[in-house]
């Protein structure tokens, strides 16, 4: 597995990160910016990484907007029915209250997918009920946990078209559906909808395969959507999965990242904001910036390999505190050509690692895929 990942990663680096290509040249590298210039052209170990980063909880990316504004992001609430798990409900309530209390208020909310844990009607409806208290305009994209029980039927009834676009104060926003195009792993094995959902809901499962993708038809739609947009004007793209190859065994990618890059390459100010990974992530792919957001439900550990070198890792969390390592985000688009993402991590003043021991990978690990879900009756031929 590792050899194959290495091969893909080398290819991605060669294709998407050629020397000298960076997102928007107008980016100001300042003390407030967490990207350290010296890290852009070489490898950095955990020890080297933490030493370079300034101690700040914001991400600065360059953009031009007609007027400054803020919006909020919540994702990965993974709601069970209220009777089974109240902790996840409490965390959504808290996020909603905090977003509602923003002053000045957020212009809108993006919900980045995985509202439900097992795609049940009750779970999706509970999410709608909890988010109803938030009075600002809300936009939704789906996560795989919302989709694979009824193949998006209930989600579509509640939220409509999964991909969409709108313009706001000089920025073009695009929401993508990166979850609904999974190859059919259920028909031949005669799975029930619950079994199909169960395999999809297991991050380290080996049965659902490379389900994350944008798809040709949606890529064509995106290309058409951007055709009339000035190539130097800002674009913000929301997706559940990251749009590059981070760690395919956990579907921390889209399988057609090459084609996504082909569509976006001509545009110089693209920011992708994504959920799914439940962790702080930052990467630059060609001229695109990519920012990973926290879940409200629980944090994932960093993958054992493939963490982008530009990521300043988040702090190792306390598993005894359900509010640690999770939260929501505000995104400010400023008139002075900047987009700031601020992570609101509950119970932490410091979101980022402060020492090598603060990193969950300070203990190096070699791990391997599971075996039990790929034996009888789900064994692949």
């Amino acid at each position, binding site marked *: 597995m590792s050899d194959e990942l290495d091969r893909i990663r080398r290819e991605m680096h060669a294709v998407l990160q050629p020397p000298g290509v960076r997102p928007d040249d107008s980016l100001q590298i300042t003390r407030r910016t967490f990207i350290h210039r010296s890290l852009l052209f070489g490898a950095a170990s955990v020890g080297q990484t933490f030493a370079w980063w300034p101690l700040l909880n914001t991400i600065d990316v360059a953009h031009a907007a007609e007027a400054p504004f803020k919006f909020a992001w919540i994702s990965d609430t993974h709601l069970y029915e209220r009777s089974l798990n109240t902790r996840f409900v409490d965390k959504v309530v808290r996020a909603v209250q905090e977003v509602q209390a923003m002053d000045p208020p957020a212009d809108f909310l993006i919900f980045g997918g995985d509202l439900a844990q097992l795609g049940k009607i009750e779970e999706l409806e509970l999410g709608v009920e909890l988010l109803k208290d938030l009075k600002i305009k809300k936009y939704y994209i789906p996560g795989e946990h919302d989709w694979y029980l009824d193949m998006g039927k209930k989600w579509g009834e509640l939220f409509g078209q999964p991909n969409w676009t709108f313009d706001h104060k000089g920025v073009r926003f695009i929401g993508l559906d990166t979850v609904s195009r999974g190859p059919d792993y259920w028909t031949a094995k005669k799975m029930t909808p619950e079994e199909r959902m169960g395999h999809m809901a297991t991050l380290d499962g080996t049965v659902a395969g490379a389900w994350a993708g944008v798809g040709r038809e949606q890529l064509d739609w995106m290309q058409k959507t951007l055709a009339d947009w000035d190539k130097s004007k800002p674009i913000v793209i929301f997706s559940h999965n990251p749009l590059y190859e981070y760690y395919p065994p956990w579907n921390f990618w889209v399988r057609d990242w090459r084609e996504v890059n082909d569509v976006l390459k001509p545009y110089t100010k693209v920011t992708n904001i994504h959920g799914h990974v439940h962790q702080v992530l930052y990467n630059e792919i060609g001229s695109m910036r990519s920012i990973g957001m926290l879940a409200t439900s629980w944090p994932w550990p960093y993958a054992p390999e493939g963490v982008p070198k530009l990521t300043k890792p988040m702090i190792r969390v306390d598993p005894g505190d359900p509010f640690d390592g999770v939260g929501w985000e505000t995104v400010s688009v400023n008139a002075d050509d900047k987009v700031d993402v601020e992570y609101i991590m509950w119970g932490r003043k410091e979101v980022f690692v402060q020492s090598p021991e603060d990193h969950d990978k300070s203990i*190096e690990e070699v791990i391997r895929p599971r075996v039990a879900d790929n034996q009888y009756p789900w064994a692949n031929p």
Partner: protein
Amino acid sequence: MINTSTFLCILTRSTIAGAVVAASVVIGPASANKDPVTPKQLKLYQEAFMEEVRKGDLLFHGDAAMAEQLGVKLSTTGWACAMCHPMASDTHPQAFPKFQQSMAKFATLRDMINWCIEKPNQGEKIDPESEAMKALEAYITWSNTGSVLVPGKY
């Protein structure tokens, strides 16, 4: 209701388990460690180990049937071990035993497993000598095969 395939599957596993027992009887505990090991023995030992890994994998991923079979209740919240530890990542079996801050004591991996069952999962602690515990331990350590031992490391 058990269909034919399920029955065959159970039969296969029973055969493996039976073969392990038979091998230990035929070869005998007194002489087994004095004779050169045979490929057949190695295969049996490996199969016995992987059977525990399989059970542990299922428990770790919240499989209700396996939990029932082994008589354990590892969670009451829907949460399963793998939801924070995909591929048993971040379980760090290679770092135990160590001082574990969350328990404020010098702890083994089995202590940590029980802590996770009781706190985040809100399940019922299991007997440290139970098959379920050994199966979980087998899966976690197997999945971390290749990691370097660093006992005591934070």
